């Protein structure tokens, strides 16, 4: 840790204020206050047409009343699956790609790096649209390609089946976002001091064993950041499901994530009118879940990781 060793008396340190003020001002005014005013509504509801403070009864409704609880637990468990698939695929693939790219002798590295990141910059509208086209059983490219290599029987309308739609969407999302961990970890790998690697080479540690023994421990903090960003991103995910399966997250709510559940409730959908109060309750639950996850990470994981920092 390199926090300042210059501990001057606080009264003279106006610059801290100057550095912090713009961020705190904009962030508080445009994000914290509006969000707080929304979250506050999770403690209110309409009772006999008047707005009443109801304490935590919205929360107990969300967690225990079958009308809400079924939807909530379904969305939560789908969200966990979504997250697990990302952790199991997106980050390892990202690390592997970054490790390959970081080899200084590799030619075309820039081309590969740029190309692999392209999906990440596409809008959800494009991603949802193009994968639906590719996986469409009617003009789909996937069935004809599978047929061409003799695997035509393997094809199924994945996005339309309850047992496969969520997995298919998770994979599409992994495809889209693999560039994020890749870039982060690539930057971390490049910033490992040459002396460290030279020393390792002198000791005969090269290739994959160099990667696992020397580099991996050094980039663990970055992998930590990538994981926590994935966690936060996954539990806020909404757009991909929305553009490809609609706000009803079909088939039969099998792709419903907390984000889509929240959107349907808060803003309403089709004939369903928006319910600000229950919507705010779901938002608060999501917020607490994410907060819990992030704090767990900060307090347990990152503390240990700090030791390896250089």
């Amino acid at each position, binding site marked *: 840790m390199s926090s300042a060793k210059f501990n001057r008396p606080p009264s003279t340190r106006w610059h801290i204020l100057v550095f912090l003020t713009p961020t705190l001002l904009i962030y508080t005014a445009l994000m914290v206050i509006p969000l707080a005013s929304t979250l506050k509504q999770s403690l209110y509801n309409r009772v006999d047409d008047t707005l009443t403070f109801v304490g935590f009864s919205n929360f107990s409704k969300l967690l225990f009343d079958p009308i809400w609880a079924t939807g909530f637990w379904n969305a939560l468990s789908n969200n966990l699956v979504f997250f697990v698939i990302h952790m199991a695929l997106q980050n390892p693939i990202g690390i592997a790609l970054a490790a390959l790219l970081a080899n200084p002798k590799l030619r075309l590295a820039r081309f590969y790096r740029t190309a692999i990141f392209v999906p990440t910059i596409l809008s959800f509208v494009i991603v949802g649209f193009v994968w639906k086209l590719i996986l469409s059983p009617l003009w789909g490219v996937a069935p004809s390609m599978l047929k061409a290599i003799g695997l035509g029987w393997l094809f199924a309308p994945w996005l339309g089946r*309850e047992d496969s739609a969520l997995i298919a969407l998770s994979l599409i999302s992994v495809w889209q976002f693999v560039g994020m961990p890749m870039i982060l970890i690539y930057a971390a790998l490049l910033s490992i001091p040459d002396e460290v690697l030279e020393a390792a080479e002198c000791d005969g540690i090269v290739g994959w064993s160099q990667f696992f023994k020397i580099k991996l421990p050094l980039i663990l903090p970055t992998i930590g950041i990538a994981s926590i960003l994935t966690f936060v991103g996954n539990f806020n995910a909404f757009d991909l499901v929305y553009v490809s399966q609609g706000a009803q997250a079909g088939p039969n709510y099998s792709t419903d994530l907390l984000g889509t559940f929240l959107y349907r409730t808060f803003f309403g959908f089709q004939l369903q009118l928006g319910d600000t109060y229950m919507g705010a309750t779901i938002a608060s639950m999501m917020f607490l879940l994410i907060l819990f996850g992030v704090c767990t990470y900060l307090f347990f994981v990152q503390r240990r990781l700090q030791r390896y920092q250089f």
Partner: protein
Amino acid sequence: MRKLFLACLAATAFCSNMARAENTTLTIESWRTDDIAIWQDKIIPAFEKAHPGITVRFSPTAPTEYNAALNAKLDAGSAGDLITCRPFDASLALYDKQRLVSLNDLPGIDDFSPVAKAAWTTDDAKTTFCVPMASVIHGFIYNVDIFSELGLSAPKTNDEFFKLLEAIKADGRFVPMALGTVDQWEAATMGYQNIGPTYWKGEEGRLALVGGKEKLTDEGWAEPYRVLKRWSDFLGDGYKAQTYPDSQNLFTLGRAAIFPAGSWEIGLFSQQAQFKLGAFPPPVASAGDTCYISDHPDIGLGLNAASKNADAARTFLSWVATEEFATLYSNALPGFFALSKHPVKLDNALAKTFLSWRADCQSTIRSTYAILSRGTPNLENETWNASANVINGVETPEAAAKRLQDGLDSWYKPAK
């Protein structure tokens, strides 16, 4: 850096102020992105020509975001002057929240029958808050070329309908029916609400359901689900992942014989299909039975209570009630039938076919739209899910019906 930025900001703020026109500009909020060309090229010029000094801007939002975006804008006071109204409960809620105003005194509002106005009138039938614009009718559109090639004719009864589907399937060259379940609303709207009125006897059954005298588990309401289940044998490969645009393309490219439809398809299909189109109403149980059609008011236009140009907006609304508008609109958008009492001459043959059913069959509205979708779980939205599930075979018709009724019972108490 920051100076440059402030200069940029000042410039943008200045420009947007400059853009304010001198005469009155009305903005129409709508979900009909499909109709931009028609509004910009036909409807608005016709109005502006007759009313100099009023400029109209048609500003549609993609249909899926319309409700959410409109509500946010209304809450904050930035919505347009004229609001396109969804039928029944959604717009009624806007009126109850005083976002829309009463149009009882609007010149021309009396040119609409009470039935036409019902979709935008309070429960006590006293106040109308949107000018009815159009209704849509359900039925089946078919590819006449395929039918004549296979020597088939439009079915009248259910048995004939399924024999027909069998025949097309046996031939093997065409998909019998273009319908997908992944978008869900297709299954509910073009499936359940299309064939359903025949089983629950149109308005009679709908009012009995609203009044609590019938239940969704009763024969008239569960039977259409059983029929829908039988459809699954006649849909295209991978119908479970087939989207609504997929279905449209499947039909208009000549690869499917029948399209369970709403009349709104007429415009696009007439334009895109390279073959002759025909239509038949939902088949009945046995020959000679009364037929029922879903003739559903779909689009209205209301006045934003916060509009600063209320007078100009009322002028526009009165114009929407005229014969000129009705003729212009119905012909520009064949399949959207104007609701006013003025007789309208239609040019499109297929649209005429749909309209002719009004004379032969009993009309009703979609069963889930009025009153029954005011709570959570929302009956209309759940019907989407249930219809798709039944066709996909993951829920039995009986289980689906029971789930819907249980959901309804949880919040809806019929008036005694």
